[in-house]
């Protein structure tokens, strides 16, 4: 779709220009939705690498095309409520997908837990094994967490911190970032000294060569704070073949293996 460049069309009479602009807009919009078997998958930040790998695999084996859009769970849910054109929503919690179902924006029958994530406290170069109460010795500004307001991993971390009985003022001052992926990156770059990461972020980072976490530097909270990640098919994509395909494929062995490899546990029970 390489039409002529539309720059500086000062000499065109206004009416002509208006019509031309409108036609182009229409064409573009049509072009976007013209391809039938394409689906947009809104994915929680921590699941980014895995989702992209799944998309690649599914595209290789089927005629469908997938676009992966990444963001923190809460933000994506908010966008969906405000009309964002996604087809499948893969959250990092169960609450948001349920909310969407309640609002009629998602199909209840499609709700399933596709992965269970693991939260960990990564504190490289700390005093021995990381421990929650020892965190209080650090400057709050050097401790990093995903924003509990809209990132489930952040929520889980926050709860843990509160239960550990840490000082409220100290808690208010720790750094809250947009999504859980950023936490690992910031610690790896040295901009934060400790933080709550997802196992998947460390694995992905290691693969990319940007993050190297020694086993002794991470305290995992698999039992205390499992992060159930649920997904739903959105109502607007009810008849979208590509979207349905994605949803169905989630429980198949090859995909489950992919997910596990990336640091999640795959739940055997179906909700």
């Amino acid at each position: 779709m390489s039409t002529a460049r539309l720059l500086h069309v000062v000499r065109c009479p206004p009416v002509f220009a208006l019509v031309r602009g409108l036609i182009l807009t229409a064409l573009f919009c049509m072009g976007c939705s013209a391809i039938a078997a394409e689906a947009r998958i809104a994915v929680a930040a921590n699941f980014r690498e895995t989702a992209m790998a799944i998309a690649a695999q599914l595209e290789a084996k089927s005629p469908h095309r997938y676009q992966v859009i990444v963001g923190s769970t809460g933000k994506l849910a908010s966008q969906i409520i405000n009309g964002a054109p996604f087809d499948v929503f893969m959250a990092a919690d169960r609450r948001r997908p349920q909310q969407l179902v309640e609002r009629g924006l998602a199909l209840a029958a499609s709700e399933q837990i596709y992965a269970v994530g693991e939260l960990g406290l990564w504190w490289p170069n700390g005093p021995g094994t990381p421990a929650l109460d020892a965190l209080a010795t650090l400057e709050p500004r050097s401790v990093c967490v995903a924003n509990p307001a809209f990132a489930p991993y952040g929520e889980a971390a926050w709860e843990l911190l509160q239960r550990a009985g840490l000082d409220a003022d100290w808690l208010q001052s720790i750094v809250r970032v947009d999504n859980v992926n950023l936490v690992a990156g910031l610690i790896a770059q040295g901009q934060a000294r400790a933080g709550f990461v997802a196992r998947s972020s460390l694995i992905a980072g290691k693969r990319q060569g940007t993050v190297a976490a020694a086993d002794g530097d991470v305290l995992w909270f698999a039992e205390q704070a499992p992060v159930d990640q649920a997904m739903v098919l959105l109502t607007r994509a009810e008849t979208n073949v590509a979207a349905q395909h994605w949803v169905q494929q989630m429980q198949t062995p090859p995909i489950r293996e992919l997910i596990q490899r990336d640091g999640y546990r795959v739940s055997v029970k179906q909700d």
Partner: protein
Amino acid sequence: MSGDLQAVWLTALLAATTTLLLVPIASPLAWWLARSASPFRSFVEAVVAMPLVLPPTVLGFYLLIMLNPESVVGGLWVELTGDSLTFSFSGLVIASIIYSLPFMVQPLQAAFRAVPESVLEAAATLGASPRDRWLNVVLPMAKRGYLTGCVLTFAHTVGEFGVVLMMGGNIPGETRVLSIAIYEHVETLNYDAAHMLALGLLCFSFLSLWLVYRYAGHRFEVVRG
């Protein structure tokens, strides 16, 4: 990086569409502002100038509410097209038109104000109707104003971020414009890609402004606040 190339194309398309649509929208408005003695004029001028000082997130927020599928306007759009206005290219066009309005209106207003009434009177005595005078006397004299307005509008739309973030999201091929792409690269600690795009945008912005000052310098006016 095809994703970034797509962002470049999308940004150019958004800016071009906005500029083209703003020309016929801003012209009558600027003309009225330039010649009217109405007491409402200052009110309208203030409204038009708002996007210059309003935080883009405020604009984005209100647009999010107004163009939402559950609102009147948004709902109507869904009825007509089946798609939401928010988080779509069309929604961005609407947002950009509002956001860049003063960048087209103000240069045009200045250009129109510079057309002396005496010349228009002379044209009238030569048999030119109001429409004739507009097309054949005013427009040729306002060429520089149009050039300035178009370049500024285009460049300004290219730099849109807060508004897009609020009601555009980050949808490749639809709303993932350059500024959003840069933000995303930074978020994912992909600084190299962020550098490339940011530097490119910096050069582009500089070039556009230089163009304007070089060719329409002393006649270029943007009234702040």
